[in-house]
């Protein structure tokens, strides 16, 4: 235990010497603090690698299934109607799952461990550190979504070329689907961050976030009441799905216009974040 032996003389010496560091709280510093926070946790790296791995593998699996579709005379004509970008982006729900958990953990991990008190002791005004956290998360979520889409594009290329389905970069449809994928995944991260700030508990946040983001449309698809189906079309997954296709999609309830979908998806990010920011300022840590 010699490593734990403190040297009292060291204390006095260092404490007497005036601090040479420029000790001042700045926004740039707070941003850097949040970066270190996210990247110094193993769970972040697990989330990032599994997002990329799962999204890429899912798109590859979907691309490989084109072979069986082509053999079946019923499904074979459908292949021509497909857009290659939809296949590249087909790992989207897996990405949403993990990125939502990552967004939730970035704040609930602080509340459940007590870290939040260190965070707020360093930044007692709170909002700057919350903004920094949101921004860090946006950058990280967008980056991993982009990398996953690029990887998916590359691994499916050989298979898609056999069916002449490699999405052309000159085709605006390609950018709509792939860009929409990154846009919606980033929104999912912010949705969970906002929700996690309000609920504080990891279990509660992950349950609510995944239910709203992924499960609810499937569950409610059996309720054929008109007003329920209207609600379903405004849920995150159906709203995202209309952005992730160039034609129509078989996701239940995906019938909003492109612009409505863009706004609805943005609202899922902005509303929880703003509500959380207001609550964060008022509540005891």
């Amino acid at each position, binding site marked *: 235990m010699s490593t734990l032996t403190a040297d009292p003389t060291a*204390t006095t010496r260092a*404490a007497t010497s005036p601090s040479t560091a420029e000790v001042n709280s700045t926004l740039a510093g707070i941003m850097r603090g949040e970066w270190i926070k996210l990247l*110094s946790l193993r769970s972040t790296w697990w989330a990032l690698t599994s997002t990329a791995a799962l999204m890429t593998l899912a798109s590859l699996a979907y691309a490989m299934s084109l072979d069986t579709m082509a053999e079946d005379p019923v499904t074979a004509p459908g292949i021509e109607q497909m857009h290659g970008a939809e296949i590249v982006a087909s790992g989207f729900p897996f990405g949403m799952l993990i990125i939502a958990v990552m967004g939730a953990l970035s704040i609930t991990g602080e509340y459940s461990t007590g870290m939040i008190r260190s965070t707020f002791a360093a930044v007692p005004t709170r909002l700057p550190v919350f903004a920094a956290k949101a921004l860090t998360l946006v950058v990280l979520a967008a980056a991993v979504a982009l990398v996953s889409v690029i990887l998916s594009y590359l691994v499916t290329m050989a298979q898609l070329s056999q069916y002449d389905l490699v999405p052309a970069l000159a085709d605006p449809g390609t950018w709509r689907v792939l860009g929409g994928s990154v846009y919606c995944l980033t929104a999912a991260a912010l949705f969970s961050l906002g929700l996690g700030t309000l609920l504080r508990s990891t279990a509660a946040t992950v349950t609510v976030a995944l239910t709203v983001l992924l499960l609810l449309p499937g569950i409610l698809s059996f309720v054929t009441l008109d007003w329920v189906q209207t609600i379903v079309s405004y849920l995150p997954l159906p709203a995202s799905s209309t952005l992730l296709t160039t034609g129509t999609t078989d996701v239940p309830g995906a019938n909003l216009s492109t612009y409505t979908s863009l706004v609805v998806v943005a609202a899922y990010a902005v509303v929880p974040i703003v509500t959380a920011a207001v609550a964060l300022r008022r509540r005891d840590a």
Partner: protein
Amino acid sequence: MIEAHELTKRYGGKTAVDSISFTIAPGSVTGFLGPNGAGKSTTIRMIMGLDRPTSGSVTVNGKPYGHHRSPLGEVGALLDAQAVHPGRSARSHLRTMAATHNIKASRVSEVIEMTGLAGVASKRVGGFSLGMGQRLGIAAALLGDPRTLILDEPVNGLDPEGVQWVRQLVRGLAAEGRTVFLSSHLMSEMAQTADQLLVIGRGRIIAAGPVQQVIDSVSGGAVRVRSPHAGELAAALAADGVTVTLPESGTLEVSGTTAEHVGDVAFTRGLALHELSPRSATLEEAYMSLTQDAVDYRSHTTTARSRTEKGQNQ
């Protein structure tokens, strides 16, 4: 300098801190003493801006904590439970806090050295013992080289060597002119470390001032007398305001008067004395006497209550 003015915190119907006012002066160690649940941690959380006071106010170095441009340069705090993510290494934890204030990496290494964590700095905090966690908390508090230190139960879980180290550390910091505010429920620790005391019970300040003064205010001192004529002497001493007890035969505990007076009375009556010793109460006795009405969770109260509940259930 910490100044609280009629600081109050209520959680629902329960008042955790009840309109307390105090000033903690720089250059000395002030002990914040009270039983568990007395409101120590709540008060500290309000000083740090973590909890919002229901009413009243508290400032550090002249401003509410959140209004300072360099919060960590003003106040370094060790907060009650470990306020650290267990998945992060000690160094990473300190780096996240240092980054917010543009504190250099060299200062992070410095506080790691100071607190004796050099050997475990790259290990994840989840595997730390309570004592190592306390050292990390103290390292975080020292990070910004703050003018004011607030340490909530700093010696909790430390080994004797660690306790000694904290004692030297806080004495050193106070000697440099810093404000040191130290909470504890251990009176023995306070007797050795603090210059000033702030005693809290059930959310109210029940005593404040220099350590010896707080002790004297409660005990008023007692005189221990051993005499073969204990009975006679007890009768002779009986007067208004004087209490005489006989802890064992031939021995008297006299309070409410001085040793001189006891000696004079014995002399005039011609009673031999074998011992006459003025005894000042210990901090522990003062503390027990101060807080006996202010303990929220006392064992016999609990049994009494559970018996009543059982009675009602039948």
